[in-house]
Every structure is written in C-alpha cells, then in structure tokens.
C-alpha cells in the first residue's frame, strides 16, 4: 500500500466526516432534544408512536409505498417482458421515452396531471361541456392521484431492472424447462420469474422507498399525512413550536431509518441470490422472439398507451408554458411567449443559479468520486469497504434528511449556511453515490492488466491514471457526469431548506410560483424549460453511452 493511497483515503474520509457524518449526527442529536427543557431523551420517539396522528402518517406512508409498488409492478412486468423478449419496431425510441420520467422531477408531472385531470382540468371541463357529468369528478386529489403520479414517475425503475433480468437470463435455463415439459406460463412462473427476482428487488426497493423521500408531490395533491410531508411542514412552518419541530426531525430520522434498513436488507438479499454469475457460456442476445401477430398488436397498443401517459407531462406543461391564463378552459385559448420572456428577462438569476450550483456540485462530485472509485476498486487501503458502504448508503437517505441536517449543522454549528456555497455542497452530498457508481462500474470493466502493462513499461501510478485509465474510463465518466448534472439540476427536496433570497434555483422557482397560486403559466414555462434542458442532456447521454446507462441502471442494477 502506497503513501499516496493512504493520503487520498484520509482526504476522502475528512470530506465524509465533515459533510456527511457530522451533519447527520446533528439530526439524531436534535431529535433527542426534549422541548422546553435542556434534557435529552427518547421522549419524542415515544410520542411519535403514541400520537395517533403520527402513527396514521407512518402507516399511510407504508401503504402508499405498497400501492405504488403494486401499481408499478402490474404495469411494469408486461412492459419489461415485451421490451426484453419480443422483436418489435421502435423499441429503442420507446426505451428512451420510458426513461424520461426518471429524470423529470416528480412534481413537474404532478402539475401537468392537475391541469389535465384536476377539478377544473381539461377532462372534467370537457365531460361537463358534453353533459356527461354535472359536477367535476375528483380524479387526482388524494391518495389515488398520488399513487398514479408516483407510479408513473417510478415505472422506469421496475421496467429497466426487470427487462435487464429477462435479457440476462441464460436462455438454456428456460430451454431446459421447456424440454422438461413446462409450457409457456408455467415456465415463466417456475423458472423465469424466480431467476429475475434479484433484478426485480433492486428496482422495487427504489420504488417502495420513494414515498419516504418525496414530500412535495403529496402536498400538491393535498395529502399532508405522509411522513416526509409532515416532516417538512413541521420543520419549515413551525419553527416557533419547538416540540413540533423536534417531532418533524423525528419523522425525518424514522424515514431515514426505514429507508436505510430496507435498502441494506434488500442489498444483502440480492448479493446472496445473485444467479447470473453461475451460468457459463451464455448466448448473444437473450431470447428475442417474433411474437404472434395478436400478441404483437397488443404489445404495440400497450407501449402506445404507456408512451402517451409519459408524454402527457411534457405536452401539458408545454401547452401551459406557451399560453396565458389557461384556467376554466379545456384547452389554452391565448398563445403567448410572455411566460418565457418573464423567465429570461426578469429572472435569469434562477437559470444562472441552477447551472452554477449544479456545475459546482458536479466538480465536487468528480473531485471526490474519481479518487474514491479508484480507491475502492484498485487498492487495498484499510477502511475502503466502510467508505464504499457509507457512500452507497447515501442512495437510500431521503433528500429531506440531508436538507434538514445541513440546516441544523451549518447554521448553529459551523456557520457555512450563510454562504451560497452551501447550495452546491448539499447537492453534491445528496447525489454523492451517482457519479461514484458510474465511475465504479467503468473501473470494474477496465481490465487491470491494461494498467499493469503501463506500470511495467515504467509509468508511475499517476501517469498511468492519466495516460491509460482516464481515456478508457472517459465514456463511463462522461455519462456519470451528465446523469449527476441532471439529478442535481432537478433537486429540490434538499435545496428548499437551505435557500435564501438570491439563491433560488429553477426547481425552487417552480415551487414558489405554484405556491403563490396565480402564476401557473410561469411555473409551467419553467418546468417546460427544465424538461427541455434535461431532455437534451439525456439525448447526449443516450447517444454517447446508451449501453453504459443501461449497465448502470439495469443489468448491474443489482447494485443500484
């Protein structure tokens, strides 16, 4: 072990200590404070599980998680099978389309849904115009709307992980079942599906845990008693009532514990059950078959249906962005560019902040992630597994936990929150694992002997890294960069706790304009702009490294 590696390790640990462990420990300390006294204790936690309101919130969140998981599974399973197994035209474009919801902020989808299905939304107005109904139907407000929009947002995780599973299965395992006498459906149930269970679980955990993270979408749909939403309201609006604030923090801690617990449990299960490594000599393209014409027709219809649902969001946001006062009308009546003028002329600050903060966060991410990936894959520095573990854990931590802990730790403790650097810093910590996973995956694919050959030829470690490793890792790193940037760009759950006047980002702007009520066109225009930016970035990613993206989210998705 070289001194250089040890040095890198120490620096990385210092960063983790200061920006992850220190703030998160504040969260726990704060949750133990008893209001009105100087004492610490478990009283807040006891209150949480005694208070019917918090208990109801807790169960509601679990219920929401289960409902969203069931919905995404029901809709995602056939779709994954279609994409993985049938020879169909336009599969590639459709796959790109289905990726869209992952990178779109969930709240942007929520706005679109309200415009379309709200009480005075397009569908209700049309139905009333045609005298089908006399009073508007409540399509979206409440749990069902929440389940719908979250399921739509999370569907790609299930589809990608499952279809990777369906593709990766060694074909002979299914052929063996066929020869043994198992016909289609039986074979699917006894062989195909069980073999995909690790892949499924990898996606399912992300889906199930999402309701413990997303506080904004429930509020938009008028559902308050969901754990993260309750926490947000308690912390953001009740800073005078210390007990409610502490209860909010307790909610955050409990959400985090559930997320981390389930995440770790599933991770260990997946690692124990990894089937793919077992089989040898697999064939080229899995089992892509020419479906029966009827099945083909149904598949196309199904893909079309999901495609329409996915496209609804950008289309509706686009319509509202280019129109003025689209209220009480099924379709916009007055087209204008005013909304965009407003954004570009009056509030370019938001755009500038968004780009600047995401970019700085990205630089932090690279400066941290690249050495970390190197350390984890290529060295035997003591403690590197723990380092990997903590960083991976950040995947499970709800954004609200990072936001609140930063507020606590860098306001009262180290006074960093008075400087705007706190914004990119929190973005960086929130998305810490994204770049690292991508770099990690590329590092694993890079044959060590290529680097060893360079060292044998006389190049030092640093020179080898810049001359050999970096150029070969470049594609993976680039995709990692763009994905990181996209995720940082749309981040709101952390930033909302930390921003001050002048530090607003585009997502915060969307939220504020919606919050003020009347400025829906502007919020729509901002969301639309954001979708356009993200989509362009996504196209670049798909163009340069579609395979890598697939590898990072899909087949190696067993490692999230």
């Amino acid at each position, binding site marked *: 072990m070289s001194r250089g590696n040890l040095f890198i390790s120490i620096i990385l640990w210092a960063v983790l200590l200061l920006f992850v462990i220190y703030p998160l420990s504040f969260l726990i300390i704060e949750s133990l404070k008893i209001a009105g006294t100087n004492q610490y204790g478990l009283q807040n936690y006891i209150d949480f599980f005694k208070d019917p309101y918090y208990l109801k919130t807790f169960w509601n969140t679990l219920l929401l998680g289960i409902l969203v998981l069931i919905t995404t599974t029901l809709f995602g399973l056939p779709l994954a099978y279609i994409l993985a197994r049938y020879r169909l035209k336009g599969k590639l474009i459709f796959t790109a389309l289905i990726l869209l919801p992952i990178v779109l902020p969930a709240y942007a989808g929520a706005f679109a849904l309200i415009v379309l299905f709200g009480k005075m939304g397009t569908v209700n107005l049309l139905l009333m115009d045609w005298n089908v109904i006399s009073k508007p139907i409540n399509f979206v407000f409440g749990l069902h709307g929440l389940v719908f929009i979250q399921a739509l947002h999370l569907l790609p995780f299930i589809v990608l992980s499952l279809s990777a599973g369906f593709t990766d299965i060694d074909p002979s395992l299914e*052929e*063996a*079942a*066929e020869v043994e006498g*198992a016909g289609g459906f*039986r074979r699917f149930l*006894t*062989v195909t599906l069980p073999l995909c*269970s690790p892949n499924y679980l990898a996606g399912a955990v992300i889906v199930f845990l999402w309701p413990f993270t997303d506080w904004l979408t429930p509020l938009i749909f008028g559902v308050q008693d969901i754990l993260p939403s309750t926490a947000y309201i308690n912390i953001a609006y009740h800073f005078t009532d210390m007990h409610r604030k502490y209860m909010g923090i307790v909610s955050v801690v409990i959400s985090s514990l559930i997320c981390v617990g389930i995440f770790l449990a599933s991770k260990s299960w997946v690692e124990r059950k990894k089937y793919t490594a077992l*089989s040898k000599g697999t064939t080229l393209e899995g089992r892509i078959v020419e479906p029966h014409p009827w099945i083909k027709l149904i598949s196309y219809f199904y893909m079309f249906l999901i495609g329409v649902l996915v496209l609804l969001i950008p289309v509706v946001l686009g319509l509202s962005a280019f129109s003025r006062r689209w209220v009480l009308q099924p379709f916009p009546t007055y087209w204008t560019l005013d909304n965009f003028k407003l954004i570009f002329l009056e509030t370019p600050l938001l755009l500038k902040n968004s780009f600047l903060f995401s970019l700085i966060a990205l630089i932090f991410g690279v400066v941290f992630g690249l050495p970390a990936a190197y350390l984890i894959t290529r060295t035997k520095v003591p403690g590197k597994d723990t380092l990997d573990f903590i960083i991976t854990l950040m995947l499970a931590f709800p954004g609200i936990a990072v936001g609140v802990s930063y507020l606590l730790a860098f306001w009262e403790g180290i006074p960093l929150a008075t400087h705007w650097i706190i914004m990119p810093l929190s973005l960086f910590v929130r998305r810490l694992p994204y770049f690292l996973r991508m770099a990690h995956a590329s590092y694993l694919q890079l044959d060590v002997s290529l680097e060893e050959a360079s060292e044998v030829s006389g190049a030092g470690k640093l020179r080898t890294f810049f001359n050999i490793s970096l150029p070969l890792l470049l594609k993976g790193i680039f995709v990692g960069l763009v994905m990181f940037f996209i995720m940082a760009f749309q981040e709101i759950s952390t930033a909302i706790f930390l921003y001050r006047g002048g530090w607003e980002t585009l997502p915060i702007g969307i939220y504020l304009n919606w919050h003020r009520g009347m400025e829906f066109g502007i919020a729509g225009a901002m969301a639309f702009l954001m979708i356009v930016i993200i989509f362009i970035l996504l196209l670049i990613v798909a163009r340069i490294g579609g395979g890598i993206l697939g590898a990072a989210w899909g087949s190696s998705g067993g490692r999230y």
Partner: protein
Amino acid sequence: MAFIQIQNLYKKFGHIVAVNRVSLDIEKGEIVTLLGPSGCGKTTTLRCIAGLEKPDEGDVIIDGKPMFSQGFVPPSQRGIGMVFQNYAVWPHLRVFDNVAYGLKIQKVPRQEIKQRVAEVLESVGLAGLERRYPGQLSGGQQQRVALARALVRNPKVLLLDEPLSNLDAKLRERMRFEIKSLVKRMNMTSVYVTHDQAEAMVISDRIAIMEAGNLVQVGTPEEIYKKPANRFVADFIGTTNFIPGEVSQIDRDRKVVSLRAEFGKILCRVFDSAMVSQNQKVHASIRPEEIEVFVSPPKDKENLFKGTIMHRAYLGNFLYLFVNVDHTLIRIQAPYDIKQKEGEELFLFLNPEKCIVLP
C-alpha cells in the same frame, strides 16, 4: 423403420445456411454423435430434434410421429431429455427440485418422485446431495445433476449438447465412459453433439460428421477412421499426411490407382474406382503410424521414398518425425529405436494397402 428419422432438414439463419438438407436415421438404443468443427450445424440439428429450433424445411420423425410437418410439436410434448452445454441447472432450485421438475409436471405421485430421483442421483453418483443448491456444487457435480434431470423421466430420446466441454481434461475423459455405460444400461436412444473427435470415438455407436451445414459421412468410428469419405473427414479424425498428385493409371478391378506426385509415382487404394478419372487432381492420404521406416532400402518394394529428417521428437513409446521427401513434409510415427538424428536420411515405405486416394 428407424426410431429417429431426420429427413431433409434445412435451416437458414439470415443468409447463412446452418443445416443443408441433412438426412439421418437413428436406430432405437443407438448412440449417434454429430461431430464437426464449430459452426458446422451440429448444434442446430440437435436443437431441431429438441424442437428448440424450427427448421425451414424437412422434418424430424421420432417413434413414427412427425415433429414439424403435421403441426409443430413443442419441446415440452416430445418426451425428450436434454443435457445442455452449460448444464442449465436452475440456480434457484435445490438438486432434488431440479431433478424432480419434469416429474412434477407429469403429475407423478410424490412418493414415486422421491424414489425415482433418489435412484437416478444414485446412478450418477450424487446420492445425498439432494438438499444442495447448484451454487454449492462443483462444475462436475452440476453436470451430473443435468444428466440426472435428463434421465429421470426415462425419455424416449436423450440429447446431449457438448455436455463435457466445460469440464477439465481428466474429468472429461472419465465422464465419457460413465455417460456411455449409463446410457447403454438404460438402452436410451441418444444424440450426442461434440467437436472433440476423441470423445466421439469413445461414446458413439455411429458418428455423423458435419461440415458447413452438410452431412459428410456417417459410420462407425472404425469406418470413419479407416475409410474417410473425403479430405475433410480424414483431416478432422486423427492426423494424416496429404500428398497431392495426378491420377496416371487406374486399375478398376483391383481398385488400385497410380498417382504422379512431385517426388515420384505412388500406388494407392481407392474405395470406389468410379470416383476417380484419368489425370484428375487428387490427394493420397496416409496416417503417420502407417508409414514404415527403413534405415537402408529394402528390395522389391514399391512406394519407397528417400527423405531427410527435419524434426525429431521423442514421445516415450514412439518417435515423432517430420521427414522432407523432395520438398514435401511427411509426418511419421516411428519406432523409438530409430537412431537417426535430424539431417540424416531415412527410407519411407508408404504401404499401398494403407495409402488411400481422396478427391
């Protein structure tokens, strides 16, 4: 009527003809090996028998029942057992459940399943490992699970697709004999696919040699070795020397042909004298172990040539020599007591009985 009849089987993948009108009859209880280099169409033929691949033309008739022409019979309805190259043992099921899978589908009573699984595991030497997962087994053991799974239902036909290619050399050699005796004991009609000629020689009653989608020759191992149908077969099975030449004289009664080779006249046998014509360009083929070596020239021998030793390797029970006869290199398996060194001269006797003409 043969138990399995492959009739005029034809299969294309894109523009490539994988199987080109192959016909082959396999008798009940026979072990037939499809042998050939990779890409010759042997696995595709096997997969057509299994029904995992549908031929573009032709049919496979098993026990009198057509598998394709009168409605496609899916693999699950064919009553076959199959051992896959990568074993295809289901990793999520225990050894017992892997083997019992097909019996459960047939709704065999539970008690009988237990008994039959135990018996078959006993016969493949896996007794006591019922509760293990495949991940806890060695490659050889997984291979036995695959074999047990294929045998347990007493299938009409057993198909084996390069079942030994993932095992190490020692184990591979032992398993050849084990599989053969097991299959023979159960009197199971088997089709075996391999690219390993030694494996094919050990296992098969008959070998069917394929090249580029075509069935080139079918015969017992001995027939194939001694009477290869063409250069490809002679080269693929064992090693041989090819000496190019032109037909100068044909004795159709004695089935003897004279060739004009670069270094002189060679007398050869021809199995079918209708095959050759005057001045035709052909090859004489003789195996290294069939060439006799003399230090001084014996009298009254035809097909005797003088050559210089180029390479000499001592292999324990024999010598391996490369001899240069007038710019043609000839491989010879010579007795180990030949003392001549590299650069020294030898006389080679290409016995006309062992020297054959191949088109």
